[in-house]
């Protein structure tokens, strides 16, 4: 096994070791030993990743794998499986390792290490401290394994495992009803998405038999484009749920019930980005229609996420919605063909968003687990490091130059711009322009709501003096913040050459995608080009178009960050004073309420999804206990009544004829208890009656 893969496997298995260790001994490891063990393991894992990266980058020319050369692809049979009796094969598991994997590994282990360290401080008073790290280790293992997976089935396994960890960690404080409910919601929503994912995988397997990425890329041409579109959309459903895309985004804000470091790691940096990763891996087999779908979903998501974020008052919820919005950007990027942009943004976003969350965690920790903005204010004086790092993250996210977000977001917007230019030049529908202008608009909004959050938290007069008085920060909390703050700047984006790494990944996998790009039905696969439009030429935006797009982006969004931040500062300079004035104006108030209630998505779900299922469930239960069971028992009942009839017939039927129908109709019930029972004469009467009837009918028959 090549060295990088061995190292990455080791990096993956280390958290598993930590998990196992903590699972069995966690209870005996008192604070902070459990945390330290877990942290040590994840740092070791980080070290392995770095070693692997070095090995990956420094390859001998003769090697078939390595940066820019080719991926490492290993597979093992796992489940014997055959599609039809004559084609035995098996579901495989394995390792697919390319530059992207390395980059993401680096990101995940870095953020995870930061979060681990932070958690030791954050969770120190929790009675289930060891359990927290147990789950965390399991998550790290699952997440890393997910990235290492070579087949969709394997990916699905870890996909669900990270979901499980997310479930466990969201419900970590399960004594709180809201936490328990949130974890349920998160899991079920993800399960809904996984359903689509599973169906997609099943369809793929039923067509191809194997779902390893190289195999998919080489043989997707065997599937008809329409089916492939369907499969693409179905697979993307998984990503919709996991990456909290519209319409399955509602679980993410609720998931903020999790301890804040968890939100930073799982619900901002890694797990939610797994959807983007998946979509990126599937990119070669996505048809233009599927990409269009993805782009539209991304577009909607990024818009509603940002809009809702402007009206939230819970610091973590703001961050959650901003995460949704940013993930929307990534999805849009994939849709419009900006593969590199999406993944680049994934990584930069992971840094600054986890920073934001950790900073928020620091705030919450300082504020004694208070999350409402209305209780904050002026905290910059008490927790300056947090305030500063938060501000750095804010800038990064706003797309301020020299901060990480700037590079990635700009790349995405450039691609979006060139795509919309291209579509304009190819006489596509007018609304295709939205693929550019809506993200641009949101690019103005993003700095605004982030600034709002910062201003209300750190600036101004403290609104809760009691809380303010006790707020403080410790080194164990801000050391990780600083680390991440560094990565949120130019260093994270340019300094460590992430973009180049990602770009190399394309060349590495290109060998597999030959058949797709050369196939007549499948050309022009790189962008969300609707299949019903004529394809005149190579639809990959040309260099010239790219430059035009770049220009467009420069002119439209170069100072968006500044505008947004300034607006935010202006509006929230005096705390809630100015906004409250503005909200007196009814349309704005209504808009605010609508956004504050997250566009009523939860209510809609309850009305249209949860409600019907519950109704169906109770209906089915009713059916079972009151209809099906009785129907089956009816046999018994009818037999019993038959029994009464039969045992009665001796006296009942005959007596009725003997003593009169009138008597019968008068008191049918008492007839069974009638004294005239067991009479031998009625027996004989019946005997002769039947005899007579038999004889008479025989005579009639024979005549």
């Amino acid at each position, binding site marked *: 096994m090549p060295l990088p893969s061995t190292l990455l496997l080791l990096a993956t298995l280390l958290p598993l070791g930590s998990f196992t260790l903590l699972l069995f001994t966690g209870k005996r490891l008192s604070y902070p030993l459990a945390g330290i063990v877990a942290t040590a393991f994840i740092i070791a894992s980080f070290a392995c990743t770095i070693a692997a990266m070095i090995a990956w980058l420094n390859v001998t020319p003769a090697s078939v794998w390595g940066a820019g050369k080719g991926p490492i692809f290993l597979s093992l049979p796992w489940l014997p499986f055959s599609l039809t009796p004559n084609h035995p094969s098996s579901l495989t598991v394995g390792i697919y390792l390319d530059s992207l994997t390395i980059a993401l590994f680096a990101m995940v282990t870095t953020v995870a290490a930061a979060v681990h360290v932070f958690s030791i401080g954050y969770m120190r008073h929790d009675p289930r401290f060891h359990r927290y790290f147990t789950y965390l280790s399991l998550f790290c293992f699952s997440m890393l394994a997910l990235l290492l997976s070579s087949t969709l089935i394997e990916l699905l396994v870890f996909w669900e495992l990270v979901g499980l960890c997310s479930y466990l960690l969201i419900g970590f404080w399960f004594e709180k009803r809201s936490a328990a409910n949130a974890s349920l919601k998160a899991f079920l929503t993800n399960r809904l998405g996984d359903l689509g994912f599973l169906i997609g995988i099943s369809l793929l397997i039923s067509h191809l038999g194997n779902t390893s990425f190289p195999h998919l890329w080489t043989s997707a041409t065997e599937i008809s484009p329409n089916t492939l579109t369907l499969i693409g959309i179905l697979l993307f459903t998984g990503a919709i749920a996991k990456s909290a895309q519209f319409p399955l985004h509602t679980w993410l804000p609720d998931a903020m019930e999790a301890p804040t470091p968890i939100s930073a790691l799982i619900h901002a940096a890694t797990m939610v980005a797994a959807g983007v990763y998946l979509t990126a891996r599937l990119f070669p087999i996505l048809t233009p229609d599927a990409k269009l779908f993805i782009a539209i979903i991304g577009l909607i998501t990024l818009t509603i996420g940002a809009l809702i974020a402007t009206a939230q008052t819970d610091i973590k919820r703001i961050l959650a919605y901003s995460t949704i919005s940013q993930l929307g950007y990534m999805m849009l990027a994939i849709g419009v063909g900006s593969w590199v942009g999406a993944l680049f943004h994934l990584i930069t976003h992971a840094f600054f968003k986890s920073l934001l969350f950790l900073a928020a965690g620091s705030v919450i920790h300082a504020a004694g687990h208070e999350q409402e903005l209305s209780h904050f204010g002026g905290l910059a004086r008490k927790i300056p490091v947090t305030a500063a790092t938060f501000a750095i993250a804010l800038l990064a996210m706003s797309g301020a130059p020299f901060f990480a977000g700037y590079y990635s977001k700009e790349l995405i917007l450039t691609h979006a711009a060139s795509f919309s230019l291209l579509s304009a030049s190819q006489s596509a529908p007018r609304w295709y322009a939205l693929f550019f202008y809506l993200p641009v608009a949101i690019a103005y909004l993003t700095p605004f709501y982030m600034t709002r959050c910062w201003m209300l938290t750190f600036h101004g007069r403290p609104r809760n003096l009691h809380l303010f008085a006790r707020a403080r920060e410790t080194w164990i909390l801000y050391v990780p913040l600083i680390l991440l703050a560094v990565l949120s700047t130019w260093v994270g984006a340019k300094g460590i050459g992430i973009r180049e790494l990602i770009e190399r990944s394309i060349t590495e996998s290109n060998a597999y995608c030959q058949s797709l790009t050369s196939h007549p039905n499948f050309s022009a696969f790189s962008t969300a080009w609707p299949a019903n439009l004529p394809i005149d030429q190579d639809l990959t935006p040309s260099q010239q178009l790219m430059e035009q797009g770049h220009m467009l982006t420069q002119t439209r969004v170069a100072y968006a960050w500044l505008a947004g931040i300034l607006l935010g500062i202006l509006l929230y300079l005096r705390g809630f004073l100015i906004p409250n004035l503005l909200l007196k104006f009814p349309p704005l108030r209504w808009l605010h309420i609508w956004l504050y209630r997250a566009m009523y998505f939860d209510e809609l779900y309850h009305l249209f999804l949860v409600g019907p299922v519950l109704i169906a469930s109770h209906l089915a239960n009713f059916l079972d206990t009151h209809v099906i069971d009785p129907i089956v028992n009816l046999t018994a009942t009818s037999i019993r009544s038959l029994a009464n009839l039969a*045992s009665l017939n*001796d*006296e009942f039927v005959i007596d009725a004829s003997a003593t009169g129908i009138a008597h019968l109709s008068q008191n049918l019930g008492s007839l069974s208890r009638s*004294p*005239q*029972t*067991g*009479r*031998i*004469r009625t027996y*004989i*009467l019946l005997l*002769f009656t039947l005899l007579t009837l038999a004889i008479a009918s025989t005579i009639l028959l024979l005549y």
Partner: protein
Amino acid sequence: MPITLHHYLVLSALLFTTGLLTILLKRNALAILMGIELLLNSVTLNLVAFNHFSPTPTEDGQIFALFIILIAAAEAAIALAIILNFYNNFSSIDPDRAQTLKG
């Protein structure tokens, strides 16, 4: 009009019917017993008549009739004993009194 087999058979059928009616209409065990004797009489009449009009020279019918008479007598004796026993227990020979066993 010569007397044919049919005459006897119809008479026997009539006897049978009256016996049947007797059984059905009497609420007295002894009368029912008499009705049964009527039935058996119709059987013997049948047999003797058939025997008389039979083309074969055997006397099977008469022999059968003889046995029927014999059995009727035996049956009557048994039935009477049972009716007496019933009377001893129930102080009545109304068979409708026998209704303990039912259901």
